[in-house]
């Protein structure tokens, strides 16, 4: 496989821009459902612009590990995004890593972010790191199992191969095992992107924060990179969910028309998914921290059932 440079650049740009747009869209819809007008959809762009131009204050207790986190969070999310088929069925760098590498890269970013949370010696940061790492430790196996279900159906752990396998005859859309895996994966999505009922992205109330608590000491462009990275991660996970469970409309051939169509399909799927996320956020309350593992165990059990039913229905 040769490297398709324009495709890589296009997907990078798409990840960088669409991520912020998606965050803005979710924020706007939430506001509308709460009878508020809400900030414009492009507000995240303005926020980032502002963060970048701000001076930074770095904690006097922080060591050299502290500045690593923003870069790693940003770079790992972006790299992970390049492994996912977004518009074209063949992800631009799909050969160099599949589902396992994607999960691993996201975990690498989280690892350093958690260290960054501990570094400034604040109790909030430590609390955030501890909670984030613990919850993701339960969410990650559920996600792995859900991906395994598809990987076993497709005979490959590479995401592009999974999508391509689904184009072939004999692939059943959302057969029972895939449906179960999808639900499991959706719960994981809520947890990993810090949404209600697991975490509240809008809160800055000290004792309920999870993700935000780790970022408290970051400011200026570091904060911008972390926020951007988090939003790219959200886009990546949502795209993953949309494209491997509903692999319609991805461009198999490389023509402008198929790319355009692919982009439209992607937008459509993301909008639907964002809508579901918003509705879930609006209709649920945040769970108590020690109830969250129950929810995640449900995801794990569902994914396990998905796997077992692969065995039954084949």
């Amino acid at each position, binding site marked *: 496989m040769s490297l398709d440079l324009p495709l890589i650049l296009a997907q990078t740009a798409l990840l960088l821009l669409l991520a912020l747009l998606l965050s803005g869209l979710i924020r706007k819809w939430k506001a509308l459902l709460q009878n508020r007008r809400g900030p414009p959809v492009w507000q995240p762009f303005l926020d980032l612009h502002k963060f*970048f131009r701000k001076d930074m204050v770095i904690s006097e207790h922080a060591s050299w590990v502290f500045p690593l986190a923003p870069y790693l969070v940003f770079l790992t999310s972006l790299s992970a995004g390049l492994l996912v088929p977004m518009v074209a069925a063949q992800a631009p760098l799909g050969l160099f890593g599949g589902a396992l590498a994607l999960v691993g890269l996201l975990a690498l970013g989280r690892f350093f972010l958690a260290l960054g949370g501990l570094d400034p010696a604040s109790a909030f940061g430590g609390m955030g790191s*501890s909670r984030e790492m*613990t919850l993701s*430790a339960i969410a990650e196996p559920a996600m792995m199992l859900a991906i395994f279900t598809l990987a076993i159906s497709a005979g*490959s*752990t590479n995401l592009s191969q999974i999508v391509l396998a689904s184009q072939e005859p004999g692939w059943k859309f959302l057969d029972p095992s895939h449906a179960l895996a999808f639900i499991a994966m959706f719960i994981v999505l809520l947890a990993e992107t810090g949404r209600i009922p697991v975490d509240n992205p809008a809160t800055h109330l000290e004792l309920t924060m999870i993700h935000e608590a780790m970022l408290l000491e970051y400011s200026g462009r570091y904060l911008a990179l972390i926020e951007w990275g988090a939003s790219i991660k959200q886009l990546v996970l949502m795209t993953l969910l949309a494209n491997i469970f509903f692999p319609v409309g991805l461009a198999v051939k490389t023509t402008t028309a198929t790319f355009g169509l692919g982009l439209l399909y992607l937008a459509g799927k993301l909008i639907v998914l964002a809508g579901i996320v918003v509705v879930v956020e609006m209709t649920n309350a945040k769970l108590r921290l020690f109830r969250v593992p129950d929810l995640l165990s449900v995801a794990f059990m569902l994914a396990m059932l998905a796997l077992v039913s692969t065995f039954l229905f084949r």
Partner: protein
Amino acid sequence: MSLCGYAAGAAGGLLFMRREKWAAAFSFGAAALSGLSGLLAALLFLGSGAAAPSWQGELLPTLIPYIKFSVRLDGLGAFFLMVASLLGCAVSIYSLDYAKGFFGRKNVGVFGAFFNALLLVTTLTFVANTIWLFLIAWELMALTGYCLISFEHEQPETRQAGVLFFIMSHIDTGFIILGFLLLFQVSGDFSFDSLHGLGAKMSAGKRDAAFALFLLGFGIKAGIVPLHIWLPAAHPVAPSNVSALMSGVLIKTGIYGLTLVCFEFLGPPPLWWGVTVLVAGTVSAVLGVLYALMEHDLKRLLAYHSIENIGIILMGLGASLVFLHEGHPVLAALSLIAGMYHTINHAAFKGLLFLGAGAVVRSTHTRNMEEMGGLAKRMPDTAFYFLIGAVAISALPPLNGFVSEWITYQALLQGFGTSESLWRLVFPLGGAMLALTGALAAVCFVKAFGITFLAQPRSEAARNAGEAAPSMRIGMAVLTAACLLLGFFPTAFVRLLDPLTQQLTGRQISGQLSVANGLVLASLTEKAGTVSTPVLVLMGLCLLPIPFVLWLALARKTKTRRGPTWDCGQRGLTPQMEYTATGFSKPVRMIFKALFRPRRDTQRDYDFSPYFATNVRFESHIEEVFVQRLYRPLRILIVRVSRRIRALQAGSIHAYLLYIFITLLLLLIFAL
């Protein structure tokens, strides 16, 4: 052969050091050189491909008829020799300065001698070609191991751990001797050559019995749950260079033995062996990491992680046995590669972490993480090496732990399609548990690194800590380099495993594992899954200009200043307000409380209302469920039985004469 050079070097160091008390340099220097030569020998052997004949020779002229000390070097032995030599070399360099800490209070010469002896006998274990030599080396390993663990025998804790290790080692030797006796019964010869493929000649019951004995025996040495209890006791109290060796090499002898016996001697394996090993591995991995999370003794934490990693290695081995049973030699080779790759990876990163922990303990004089903190500023090099080790052991890309776990996942996933039996569910479930293990390991190492190296120092000792001595840093740098190389060049490394897989499964699959000129690691076919750690790194580097350009465009004029951490308007943060290791793992303790059964005591002293306590004492304690449920009743039983038996040893000579008479009588009766 340079192998002889290695043995001679280690022995030379041993002899030399008995006299020169202060010249630690000689003994550890000799050990380092021997390690290097052993590494080269192994690399030469493995590099020359599967065509290389296995080399054999007599170690000593036959002094006693019937007992032969022949050695050989084959794919399996050479691989383990490589692991041992790599770690031996790095640890020896580290020890040059580390041993200085014992000057004036301990006999460093004896320490160096035992250190060399341990390396020597471990090497002998890997190259032994007769049961005799193997068992003698095995026993000497237990003895030298005991001496090294008990080196700082002033502490009662150390003595206890030493004795525990001693007892467990002898139980395992006992099982192994029994196992070999079963084999000998069939083969009638003590040489390993005569044991090859013996499984086909043995009756099924005997074969299973031998397997069970070997699994127990080697399992104790490797630290499989629930046979692991010596590990978390012995690793922390030993000097840190010894802990690194024990964790990296000593427990791997168990893996070596199990591989040798299951694949070479007793194969072809029935299904239940593979499934047993796979399940034992899974249980060890998950429980190992869960108990590790509860530790705040840095070295004990690492010891529990050894149990976890042994579990991951066994998952590879177990899967391989299952595939052999089902007649998929290629998949068997893939899983075997997964296990062996993880073996060397574990030696590299766990050795590194123990050496790092040793440097930290040396500077702070405590193993308790709650008294550390802020060390990243005070010992930046050590912190960097430890961080690399932590990322590697957490199976995060692009380092070596990720690569070997990736191969393990691939092997497990492909295993699903191989049979129609319900047993195949074991593979994806194993995969899920592996995912849980990896994720929990990441939690544990955020804690281990974060609490130890980051934030404010939590004690005076940590505040005054200084960087490790130069040779210690070089030793760590060697292993860091090993972690990076093993992570970045997996396709080159799997080529070295060809002789091993050829020997044990009859297949060489390194060609199938590498696509795009070795840039990309594939799981047998390109379609089934690919990953490329070097490209992932490159990708990160290529994306780095994005934040840089934005910085140039927007943030060039911004200033960065240092300020206090937000303290809610109080008067400054104190180390007491930081998150502790115990606090960090609290959510995990809550989630898995059915397993941990934490015992908590809270005492409040108050004057008028419990809400205004003047003094609070909190104690939390976790005891391993196996110690509680299995070993304690066992110990009580043994003590009780011994007490009964003691009546026999009355000390009266008449009684003893009577025993002899009765024995004689019985023997005569049997003889007739």
